[in-house]
């Protein structure tokens, strides 16, 4: 893991001290809320419906066990005993008191964490693949690139006041995008270099995003040598900073600029800017790359013995996992099937800890649960935890033979829901239960769906389905890219929900389309149920995924069942 150097440490400590002074001045009445607001937002402190909300950055989602323990301690001491993991791979505290926030920032600084650039019109936390460094389908570890981007973008003086917020995501798995790079302002894909066999390059995508005007990113540069990554990003940001629509907040994201100029013209302007800086100080030397890469070298993996007495192989692991999946212990079998992913190193497995138990708000974890996960990371792995953009936690290095023990311990704290990648693994934004901007509630829709899906065999038979819910058009719940998307709207003071189908945030990225008239809150769960039953009844076979079925069959079969009754059609 990256460890702070003297600069990082000084920056974070000084910022916490500066904020302590600003808070004291706000509490004494020396500065007004209008004066304080931009200062607090620069430190990730929002005002929500019931309280302040503090968003803490977790760079590319990676946490050391001591950091997760600190997050648990903060939840316990300064909040109400829990935290909310967000789709930006960050954590949010929903109930801090203002005068405690500087102390929270000091506590965070003591474990190399902060809340800088987690809000405001700047470059936000760079997100990445939650299986970075351990998945079999990875070409190169994206965290090295993310860390370089973090260092380049932190307090970048030119980009502190961009037209709008700016989000970058990086994936190192060219055929398995788990970081949703195509719906980011900039997406970086590490790909095989077409010019040089065995080498890698960066494909740069630009102009993706969700919100009011969802858009899939387009390729700005097909294959950029890594030495130019930072200068090229800087060129993109300069073009955006110069021409982004500062006059209209709804048109200020880079996706609008790319759409207005067209990708060719946008690329031309970026190239023109890039020519001026490409060979300057931002050129990434091999030494600089290595300086950062050493922090992400593999831990000291043990070499295990296989069945035949030779070294254990990946095939041995696959057989073992298959045996558990089909074994008599159904709870363990289902959990292994959905929450365990094969690791690239023989003898290890990747465990996704579901933060989506039945009836609970997606992404919330109590301090007790965070402590347990930190303990498991130490006991069964190498003390690392990763936050996923779909609001779960990953233990990336669990000794495979110890999976049953891990499962048992997680079960004890309601953390072993076997639903990762299933329809109850819901992404939901805080919605009207917490958020000032919401039109409707998201969390109760999610909890009602998870409670409705009682039959676990049915849940697993449905296979891989993503369901995403947002409480307003800002789309923090990524509803456009859920295979099933739900958007809360306000119709004359009543909560209604639009249903969308066909979205995906992966390599086959697509935006979901609205199925028909919105449903009142009392009907949305039945509507989702009807969608799922239509799929089960009509799919070609269990091998046809929900998304593939929607793409093949279109909306006809769903509409026929959902809107057959004239009352509903007239709604």
């Amino acid at each position, binding site marked *: 893991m990256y460890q702070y150097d003297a600069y990082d440490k000084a920056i974070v400590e000084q910022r916490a001290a500066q904020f302590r002074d600003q808070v004291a001045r*706000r*509490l*004494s*009445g020396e500065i*007004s*809320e209008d004066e304080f607001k931009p200062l607090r937002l620069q430190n990730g402190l929002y*005002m*929500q*419906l*019931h*309280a*302040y909300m503090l968003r803490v950055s977790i760079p590319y989602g990676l946490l050391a066990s001591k950091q997760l323990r600190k997050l648990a301690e903060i*939840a*316990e*001491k*300064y*909040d*109400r*005993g*829990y935290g909310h993991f967000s789709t930006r791979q960050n954590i949010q505290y929903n*109930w*801090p*008191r*203002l*005068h405690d926030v500087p102390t929270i920032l000091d506590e965070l600084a003591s474990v190399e964490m902060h809340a800088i650039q987690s809000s405001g019109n700047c470059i936000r936390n760079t997100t990445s693949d939650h299986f970075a460094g351990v998945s079999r389908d990875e070409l190169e570890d994206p965290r090295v690139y993310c860390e370089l981007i973090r260092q380049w973008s932190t307090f970048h003086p030119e980009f502190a006041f961009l037209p709008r917020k700016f989000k970058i995501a990086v994936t190192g798995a060219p055929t398995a995008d788990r970081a949703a790079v195509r719906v980011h302002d900039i997406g970086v894909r590490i790909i095989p270099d077409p010019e040089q066999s065995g080498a890698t390059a960066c494909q740069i995508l630009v102009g993706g995003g969700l919100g009011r005007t969802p858009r899939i990113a387009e390729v700005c540069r097909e294959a950029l040598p890594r030495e130019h990554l930072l200068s090229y990003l800087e060129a993109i940001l300069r073009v955006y900073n110069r021409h982004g629509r500062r006059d209209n907040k709804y048109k200020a994201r880079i996706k609008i600029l790319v759409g207005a100029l067209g990708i060719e013209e946008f690329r031309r302007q970026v190239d023109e800017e890039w020519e001026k800086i490409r060979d300057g100080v931002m050129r990434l030397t091999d030494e600089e790359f290595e300086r950062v890469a050493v922090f992400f070298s593999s831990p000291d993996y043990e070499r295990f013995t296989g069945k035949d007495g030779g070294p254990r192989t990946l095939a041995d692991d696959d057989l073992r996992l298959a045996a558990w999946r089909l074994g008599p212990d159904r709870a363990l079998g289902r959990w292994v099937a959905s929450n365990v992913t094969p690791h690239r190193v023989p003898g290890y497995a990747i465990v996704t800890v579901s933060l989506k138990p039945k009836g*609970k*708000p997606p992404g*919330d*974890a*109590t*301090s*007790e649960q965070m402590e347990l996960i930190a303990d498991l990371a130490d006991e069964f792995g190498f003390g690392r935890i990763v936050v996923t953009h779909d609001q779960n936690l990953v233990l990336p290095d669990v000794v495979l033979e110890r999976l049953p023990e891990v499962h048992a311990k997680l079960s004890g704290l309601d953390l072993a829901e076997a639903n990762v990648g299933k329809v109850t693994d819901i992404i939901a934004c805080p919605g*009207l*239960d*917490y958020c000032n901007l*919401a039109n409707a*509630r998201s*969390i*109760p829709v999610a*909890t009602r769906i998870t409670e409705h899906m009682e039959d676990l065999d049915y849940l697993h038979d449905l296979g891989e389905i993503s369901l995403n819910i947002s409480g307003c058009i800002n789309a923090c719940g990524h509803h456009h890219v859920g295979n099933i998307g739900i958007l809360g709207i306000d119709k004359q*003071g009543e*909560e209604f929900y639009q249903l969308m189908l066909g979205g995906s945030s992966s390599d086959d990225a697509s935006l979901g389309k609205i199925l028909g008239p919105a449903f009142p809150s009392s009907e949305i769960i039945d509507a989702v149920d009807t969608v799922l039953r239509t799929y089960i009844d009509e799919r070609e076979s269990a091998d046809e995924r929900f998304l593939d079925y929607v793409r093949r069959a279109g909306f006809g079969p769903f509409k026929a069942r959902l809107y057959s009754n004239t009352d509903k059609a007239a709604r």
Partner: protein
Amino acid sequence: MSLWMITGSSTDDGAPIYLQADGCWSRRVVDGEVLDDHERRDERLALARSGERQVCDPYPIEVLRGAGGEPRPRSLKQRIRAQGPTVPLVADRPRPGSRLEGPAARSA
């Protein structure tokens, strides 16, 4: 006839607070002063704005009277704001040093 109340967020912890007739703030919507004319509403808002040390961004909300005459916010957002999240929290410890004791204590 529209009825209003002045609300804002407490500078201390961001909790919703409501302006009372005596010019103090309460954390319970039932304690807030119900205003039935524009002029009085604007006067009270100006008063609230002058007390910015205690309150953040005061603004008027529409309220209704219940069967017993007690005020409650008209909009769902303001009702949730007054009552707390509608889903149980995964953990519900009171905040240290806070006068709030949980959403249930703040009944509308």
